[in-house]
C-alpha cells in the first residue's frame, strides 16, 4: 500500500506502457485510417510520458526537450498522414485501411 500511495517514476512508466499498448492494439486491429492515425498519436504520447518522467527522475531537462521534438514530429506526421488520407479518400472514396493494397492507381 505504501508503494501505491507514493508515486514513483515506475508508476509513470507503467502508465506510459499501458498507453503504448493501447496504441499498438489500435494500430494493429482497426480498419479506419483516421483511428489508426490517432492510435499512432497515442503511442507517441506514451513515449513522451516516459521521456518527461525520466527527465524528472534524473533532474535534467533533456527529456523534456526531446518530448518537444516528439510533439513536433507528431504534428508533421499528422499533417502528412491526413494529407495521404485525403488523397486516398478522393480516389477510393473510403477510409478503410484494408483497401490500401495498391502501390499506385
Amino acid at each position, binding site marked *: 500500500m505504501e508503494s*501505491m*500511495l*507514493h508515486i*514513483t*517514476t515506475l*508508476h*509513470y512508466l*507503467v502508465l506510459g*506502457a*499501458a*498507453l*503504448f*499498448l*493501447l496504441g*499498438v*492494439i*489500435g494500430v*494493429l*486491429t482497426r*480498419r*479506419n485510417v*483516421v*483511428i489508426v492515425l*490517432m*492510435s499512432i*498519436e*497515442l503511442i507517441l504520447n506514451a513515449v*513522451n*510520458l516516459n521521456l*518527461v518522467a525520466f527527465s*524528472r*527522475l*534524473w*533532474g535534467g531537462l533533456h527529456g*523534456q*526537450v526531446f*518530448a*518537444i*521534438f516528439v*510533439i*513536433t*514530429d*507528431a*504534428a*508533421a*506526421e*499528422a*499533417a*502528412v498522414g*491526413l*494529407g*495521404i*488520407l*485525403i*488523397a486516398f*479518400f*478522393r480516389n477510393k*472514396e*473510403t477510409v*478503410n485501411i484494408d483497401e490500401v493494397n495498391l502501390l499506385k492507381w
Partner: protein
Amino acid sequence: MAPVATPFFFYLLSGIMLIGGILVITRKNPVHSALALIVTLLAQASIYLMLYAPFVAGVQIILYAGGIMVLFLFVIMLVSIDRSMKERQFNSQWVVGIVAATALGGLFIAVYTKGKDIFPEHALPMVENDNTQQIATMLYGQYMFAFEIASLLLLVAIIGAVVMAKKRI
C-alpha cells in the same frame, strides 16, 4: 508551488487517460475517438505539470489539443464517415494483433519487474520557476542543430501535405 495530493491526482488522471485510450481504439465513430483522444491528451498535460514540466504541458495543450486534434476533426468532417461506420470496425487479423500486443505487454512487465531496482527511490529535486528559460537555453544551445532539423521536417511535412491533398497544383 509544490503539487498537492499527488497520489490522488495521479490515479485520477491516469484513470482518465486509460479510459480515454480505450475509447479511442474502440469507438465506431471517429469523432468520438478524436474527442476521447483529446481528453487523454489534456489529462497527460496535467500529468506533465505534476512532473515539473510546465512548458511541455503548455506545448501539449496548444499543439496537440488545439492544433493537431482540430486538424483531425477537420479531416474527419471533410471525408464522409457514414459508410465506414456501417462496415466492420476491426480487421481480419485482429486476434493476431491482440496476441502481439499482449506479448509486448508481457515484455514490458518482465523488463519493469527485473529493472525496478535500477531507478533511484526518490527523484532529484527540480525547480519549476525557470523551467521555460532552461528549455530555451537548451533548445537554442545544445540542441540547435536538432531544432533546425525539426523545423525542416515541418517544412517538408507542410509541402508534402499540400501536394497530396490539393486537387490541382
